[in-house]
């Protein structure tokens, strides 16, 4: 019951991941409901040269519309927006996307921190952010910010992560709303829709 009340107010879901997160995404996506009512944003570290690989992989595993985020595009419900390789992705007050080619953060571009922080201010308590497997600490500062604006912080259980460092760092520095095993993620996301 508690989750039903919470979840009615989810206006955006952002998932951040680095090394080892692709497996989790490929597990989550086929199990997502078709009628998701909020936009899903993915910020995943990867090499610039593999630009469309992630998009293609996910497209083949979900009926939701999946695409690389275009600058000035508006976040639309039920659509999956992938932060393009080698750009930071920000969310504007009017819920459009801004891209940014500034310095790497935590050796990363896109940086998970950047998107979490920008979205935290815009969506406040109606934001849900999930941090997955990874081997650096990108995302941790962003989750602190999400927390301070009242958004929900979800961390992958480090025991189920291929690279536990990133979720471990998050768990040490932020009080998460929930820590989830990778196999429970899809169910959690589906319930945000209720």
């Amino acid at each position, binding site marked *: 019951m508690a989750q039903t009340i919470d979840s009615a107010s989810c206006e955006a879901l952002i998932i951040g991941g680095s090394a080892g997160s692709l497996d989790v995404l490929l597990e989550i996506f086929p199990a997502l409901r078709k009628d998701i009512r909020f936009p899903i944003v993915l910020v995943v570290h990867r090499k610039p040269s593999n630009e469309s690989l992630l998009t293609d992989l996910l497209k083949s595993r979900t009926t939701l519309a999946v695409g690389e985020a275009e*600058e000035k595009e508006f976040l639309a419900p039920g659509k999956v927006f992938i932060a393009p390789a080698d*750009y930071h992705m*920000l969310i*504007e007050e009017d819920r459009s996307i*801004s891209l940014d080619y*500034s*310095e790497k953060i935590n050796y990363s571009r896109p940086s998970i921190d950047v998107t979490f*922080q*920008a979205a935290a201010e815009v969506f406040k308590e109606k934001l849900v952010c999930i941090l997955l497997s990874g081997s650096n600490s990108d995302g941790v500062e962003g989750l602190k910010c999400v927390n301070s604006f009242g958004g929900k912080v979800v961390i992958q259980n480090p025991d189920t992560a291929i690279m536990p460092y990133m979720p471990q760092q998050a768990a040490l520095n932020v009080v998460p709303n929930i820590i989830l095993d990778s196999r429970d993620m899809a169910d959690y996301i589906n319930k945000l829709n209720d």
Partner: protein
Amino acid sequence: MIDNEQVEILLNDVLENHGYDFLEYSPASIKRRIIRLYGLDNFVSFAEFRYTVKTDKQYFKRFLEEITVNVTEMFRDPSFYKSLRNDVLPVLGTYPFIRIWVAGCSTGEEAYSLAIVLKELNLLHKSLIYATDINPSVLEKAKKGMFPLSYLKQYSENYLQSGGLKDFSAYYTANYSLAKFDESLSSKMIFSTHNLVSDHSFNEFQLILCRNVLIYFDKGLQHKVFNLFDSSIEKLGYLALGSKESLEFWPKAREYKRVKMEKIWRKL
């Protein structure tokens, strides 16, 4: 933390006191740059930050350099340079004289990349590259043509992927931690400040490169800048944008034709 209202106050000060207009920049990006600088320079209050930006001319130079994004690289997006080399520059080579504008050139990496391609196509001698930026201090760096040696491995890989024909190291001499690029390249460049927000067209060009500059502008300003470019491109000239930028929603876009898969358009 600095809030949206404070950002607006600061940007209004900057316009009034220094004549630079950032009010039509994408709000989230410019705010992030401001917060970053505030943290980097250890200001203790917004009031102190505001006062310094407003009154300290020396500090304002730093503000301008840090608030704008000056990250760039040589031969970024090799497939783009390949298309310039194979599809665009050979066409311009049929003209007696080639005028190119690199708008928002930052520290010059793109201008030098372009000069290298022109040289290999044996067109550099009849080309002139106007490289402009809002920011005088990055232009000083661009004029010197010296880039950190540590980046050259990446640049050299980009160059080869873009269809480069030579040994990349032939274009520079290593000088301690810097690579100094051949002066025959910069001899065909003119560096000048130009503010895309407030300055007008200053010449007609056959090619304008403006890559990863417009992403920092809001839609209204993007369209103004497209109009500025439109009045600065000759008929059948080319406009090249960054890999995530597009002419698509600009009303006059129909008068331009996309060149293959790259973000290059030809004026019809």
